[in-house]
């Protein structure tokens, strides 16, 4: 069995979690202040993931940019590739928070969605 301290980075509280795990799964966590830690720590050990947040330009909107994010955390090693994909994306027409900007980005099964409105 393995043990270690991992900072939960889901929110600014930054709980320093005591984690125990074996080759296959997370066995226990201690010192978490909320339930969001379990999924994050498990991923951080076996398949680190991040939510990518950035902006894309709008076509017509009052605001030159809308902010976007991956609707779910994506594998950490894809973060810069996703940025490259989004570098050439422009949002068409009026955009509302929640609208899908890119479906299934890089085959991850995760959509890029808007988090703000263009107008």
């Amino acid at each position, binding site marked *: 069995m393995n043990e270690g301290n991992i900072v939960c*980075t889901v929110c*600014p*509280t930054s709980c320093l979690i005591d984690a125990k795990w074996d080759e296959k799964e997370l066995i226990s966590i201690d010192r978490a202040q909320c*339930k969001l830690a379990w999924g994050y720590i498990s991923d951080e050990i076996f398949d680190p993931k991040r939510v*990518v947040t*950035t902006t894309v330009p709008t076509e017509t909107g009052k605001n030159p940019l809308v902010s976007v994010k991956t609707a779910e955390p994506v594998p950490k090693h894809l973060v810069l590739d996703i940025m490259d994909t989004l570098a050439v994306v422009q949002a068409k027409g009026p955009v509302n928070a929640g609208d899908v900007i890119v479906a299934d980005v890089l085959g991850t099964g995760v959509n890029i969605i808007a988090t*703000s409105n263009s107008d």
Partner: protein
Amino acid sequence: MRTEQVDVAVVGGGPAGLAAALSAKESGAEHVLLIERGERMGGILNQCIHDGFGTKLMGEAFTGPEYAQIFINRLTNTGVNVKLDTMVMDISSDRELVICSSDGLIRVKAGAIVLCTGCRERTRGAIRIPGTRPAGVFTAGVVQEYMNIRNLSVGRKVVILGSGDIGLIMARRLTLEGVEVECVAEILPYPSGLARNIVQCLEDFEIPLYLSTTVVDIHGIDRVEGITLAKIGPRGGIVRGTKRFVKCDTLLLSVGLIPENELAKKAGIKLSPVTAGPIVDDHFQTSIPGIFCGGNALQVHDLVDYASMESEKAGRSAAFFAGAGKLPSPSIKVLPGQGIRYVIPHEVSGNEPVDFSMRVKSPEADRYIVFKQGEKVIRRMRQIELAPAAMIRMRVRSDRFQRSLDSLTVEVAD
């Protein structure tokens, strides 16, 4: 000048102001006016496009704009009157505001006022870096607005001075946009930002963080051409032989935030020299009856959830004051003891449960936060990790207060 009469006037339409206006309305204030100088509500959250907002209040991590939108949606159809592009110019101790918009100047007489004006960034002047005055020196929050709202870029090679959270968030943001971030220099021997941002924003991208290090010179005539870094010794002097030149075209300053309280000063509200925000009681009432304060104007928050929660209480208290004309007066002074930089509220009545927020002076591990009245411990909580960057929140139940005593001390102890 035209005059309007309202029950509760809320100054500032950031998350604090939104929460205060909503709760004032829900607590029965009929005419609630929310005044925001910008063209939209949401305050600083509009430029905080990263995620991690709302985990405490909603059990889910939202981005800044999404978190703001949840409150903006809740406010719609409540009958709260929102004035955008409107600046509050002046407030007086008898709760009169002068506001200015394209309609001209209007005088607003309010039953109660809640100040939610947020905070501003410390600048180069405030920390006195020597050297030339070339273009390319920015505060981190300004760059955040440039990049995330206005679609402007600032440079190609960046050094960040100060490990405050905005600087760390911007280190990641710049890296993602293809800008080279050379390093982050922090004058203190420990990071001033949250552990989460050190991990997510620096370690993920292998950006070096140099502690006990600062910028001692800025080079360049028209544009920044580089900076000199040096190690700082325990007594604040430059360590000999540690000066080194780092080539860059941009210097970002993330050297702290200061509550914005120009209006509070005009009204004669007493400010704390430690937080630079008003002295408040457990209703978030300032030294002037009927004027309340919450959010970053009161104390700089790392979690928006707590800014919302405290302002909700401020809004509720304001509605109550507007109706009843007074609130129970506080009788117990709250004093920061050993290891504590400040505690808010500064005074409490002891009749209701109180959510205290506080910051420690320096990092500590495995200690207790202890609330004492006289020799009696009224509340004690173990803290595995204590850092100045992380605000601590603790609730004390009303039956724990000893109302016969006039003070309470909070300290870090074994």
